[in-house]
C-alpha cells in the first residue's frame, strides 16, 4: 500500500478537456471516492493513474516515485472495471490467478493456490471456482473481478463504478463487503462513482469533480455539511438540496443570491406559508413536496407526519447554506 499524489494533472482528448489541473493526495490506507456526473473526468483520472492513458501535464507519484513514464504493469496498481471485466475464455480460478501469473509477479504455484482460495473465501465464490467466467450471474462476475484485484497487493486499488451494473440488493451487500475489505486489509482505494450513497457510506474522503476539475475534497461529512458551491451541495443528499432564491424568505443580504436548504433543515410552524402538494411515505420517514410561490421544495416531515395533501404549512429555513451569484458558498465567521 502506498500514498498516491496527483499534481496539476491535465489531460485532453482533442479539443475536449477531460481532466484539468487536478491536484489530490490519496493518503496511504484511505478510501477516496471520486463523485461526479458522466463526463466529469472521473474515469479519465483513474485511467491516468493506472497508466492506460498518458497525462498531458502534471505528475503522478505512487509511493514517492514519479510514474509518468511507466507502463501500467510497472505502476503496480489493480483496477476493477465497470463491465467486461472477466476474461470470458477462462474459468473463475484462472481469472483470479491471471494477475499472479504475470511476468511481473511470477508467483509460485503453491502461493497462487493459497491466495486464490483465500480471496474466493472472502468473496464467497469458492463453489464457483471451476465455472467458466461467462456462466456467472452479474453479481458473481463483479465479485470475481474485485477478487482479481484483491489477489494482488498493489500500491492502490482503482475501482471504476464496479457496482453500477448490479441490482440494488447486491450493491448494498458489496458496499459493506468493500468497506470491510478496506478496513481489514488497510488498503488504499480510489473509487469512482456517480452514486452518492456509495460515496457517503464507504469513503474516508470524497472528491467532487465538475467538468474535469476537482471542486472539493474532504470527508463525506464536510462535503455534506459545508459544500463549497451549489454544484457540490446538489451532488450529495437525497432528496436533493432545495436551491431557492434568497428573497423568498427575505434573507437577502446583498451578497447571497441563492440559499441551499437540505430537506431536514426546516422549522415548521413559522415563516412562509407553503401548500402541501404530495406526501411520500417511505416507512422510516415521510417526505413532503411543497409549493412556495411557484418554487417546489422537498422537506422531511417531522415524525408522526401531521400534514396532509392540499393543506398549507408554514416553514422557516434552519441554518441555510448561502451561495453568491456565481454559486460559491459564502462562509461567515459566525457560522
Amino acid at each position, binding site marked *: 500500500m502506498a500514498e498516491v499524489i496527483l499534481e496539476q494533472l491535465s489531460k485532453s482528448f482533442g479539443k475536449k478537456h477531460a481532466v484539468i489541473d487536478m491536484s489530490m493526495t490519496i493518503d496511504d490506507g484511505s478510501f477516496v471516492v471520486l463523485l461526479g456526473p458522466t463526463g466529469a473526468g472521473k474515469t479519465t483520472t483513474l485511467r491516468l493513474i493506472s*497508466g492506460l492513458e498518458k497525462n498531458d501535464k502534471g505528475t503522478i507519484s505512487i509511493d514517492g516515485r514519479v510514474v509518468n513514464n511507466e*507502463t501500467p*504493469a510497472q505502476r503496480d496498481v489493480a483496477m476493477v*472495471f465497470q463491465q*467486461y*471485466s472477466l*476474461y*470470458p475464455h477462462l474459468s473463475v480460478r484462472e481469472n483470479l490467478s491471471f494477475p499472479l501469473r*504475470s*511476468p511481473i509477479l511470477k508467483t509460485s504455484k503453491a502461493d497462487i493456490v493459497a491466495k486464490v482460495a483465500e480471496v474466493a473465501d472472502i468473496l464467497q465464490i469458492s463453489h464457483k471456482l471451476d465455472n467458466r467466467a461467462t456462466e456467472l450471474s452479474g453479481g458473481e462476475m463483479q465479485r470475481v473481478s474485485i477478487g482479481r484485484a484483491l489477489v494482488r497487493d498493489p500500491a492502490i486499488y482503482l475501482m471504476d463504478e464496479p457496482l453500477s451494473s448490479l441490482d440494488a440488493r447486491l450493491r448494498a451487500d458489496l458496499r459493506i463487503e468493500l468497506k470491510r475489505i478496506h478496513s481489514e486489509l488497510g488498503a488504499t482505494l480510489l473509487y469512482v462513482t456517480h452514486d452518492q450513497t456509495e460515496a457517503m457510506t464507504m469513503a474516508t474522503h470524497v472528491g467532487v469533480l465538475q467538468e474535469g476539475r476537482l471542486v472539493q475534497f474532504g470527508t463525506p461529512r464536510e462535503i455534506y455539511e459545508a459544500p463549497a458551491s451549489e454544484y457540490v451541495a446538489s451532488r450529495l443528499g437525497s432528496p436533493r438540496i432545495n436551491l431557492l432564491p434568497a428573497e423568498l424568505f427575505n434573507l437577502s443580504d446583498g451578497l447571497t443570491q441563492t440559499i441551499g436548504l437540505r430537506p431536514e433543515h426546516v422549522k415548521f410552524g413559522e415563516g412562509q406559508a407553503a401548500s402541501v402538494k404530495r406526501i411520500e411515505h417511505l416507512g422510516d420517514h415521510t417526505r413532503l413536496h411543497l409549493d412556495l410561490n411557484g418554487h417546489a421544495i422537498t422537506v422531511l416531515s417531522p415524525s408522526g407526519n401531521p400534514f396532509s395533501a392540499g393543506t398549507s404549512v408554514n416553514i422557516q429555513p434552519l441554518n441555510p447554506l448561502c451561495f453568491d451569484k456565481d454559486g460559491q458558498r459564502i462562509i461567515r465567521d459566525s457560522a
Partner: protein
Amino acid sequence: MSYSVTDPSKRQKFIAGTLVILYALITMVPLVWIMMTSFKTPPDSISYPPKVFYQPSLEGYVNLFTTRTRVSAEKLASLPPPENFAEEIVRSRNMVIAGPSKFGGRFLNSVIIGFGSTFLSIFLGTLAAYAFSRFKIPLADDLLFFILSTRMMPPIAVAIPIFLMYRQLGLSDTHVGMILLYTAVNISLAVWLLKGFIDEIPREYEEAALIDGYTRFQAFYKVVLPQAATGIASTAIFCLIFAWNEYAFAVLLTSGTAQTAPPFIPTIIGVGGLDWPAIAAGATLFLLPVMIFTVLLRKHLLRGITFGAVRK
C-alpha cells in the same frame, strides 16, 4: 410445447425441414456421382444408361497413383503371381505397373501451398487487423480501402504482369511463389474479416491484462487471440478454400515442382483414353482435406459466419 407466437408451428417446421433436405440432396448429387464414379471400372463409368448399382472397384484409385504399360499376353503369363491387389487389377487389363504417378507429389504440393498460404494470411491478417482495430493509424480508413481494393478486380486480370514478375524473380513454379501469391489474394479478406471480429472484443480485456502485469503483446496473445478464435477459424476456412481450389494461376505459374492438384487432375484425361474413374478418384481425394478441415472447425464456422451479429 411452446406457445410463443414467434416459434414456427410443427407444420412450418416440417415444410422448412423438407425443403432444406431436398436442397441438400440436389446440391449433393454431383458430389455423390463423382464419388460413385471413382469406385467404378472404366467400362462401368461410361456405360449407358448410367449404372447406379455396380460392382465397386479400386481401379480408379490404382490408376490415379500409378503409371502403367501394356504388355503382350506371353510376357504377362511369364510374370510371377501379383504381389498385391493393385497389380492384380492392372494385369487384368493386360498391363503392368511401371511406377508411381505424379499425383502424390501434386497433392502434397496442394497441401503445402494451401495450408502455407492460409497460415501466412491468417498470421499477417490477424496482426494487421489488430493494429487497425486498436491503434490510431494515420489514414487508417484509406489504407483499409486500399487493402480492399486489391480485390476489386479478378486476380487473374493481372496474370500477365505477375507471370513476368515471377519469371524475373525466379518465383515461377516454386512453393514460396505460390504461397506468396495466394496470400496476397487472401490478405484483404483476412484483414477485413478479422478486423470485424477483433472490433467486437472489448478493449477492457486487454486493459485489464495490461494492469494485471502483462505487456501488450502478451495481452494480445493471452486475451485477444483466444477470443478471436471463432473469427480466425472461419477466416482460415475461407482462405484455405480459395487457395485449395485455385486453378488459373496454378495452370499459368506451375508446371512441375510446385504444381498443385487442380491443374494436374485434368491431365489424367490424356493418358490412354478417358480414364473417368481415375479422374473421379483424384477429385474425391482432393475434396477430403477441405472437408476434414471444415468439419473440425465447424462449430466455430457456424458462429463465425454470423459475424458476431448476435453476441451472448
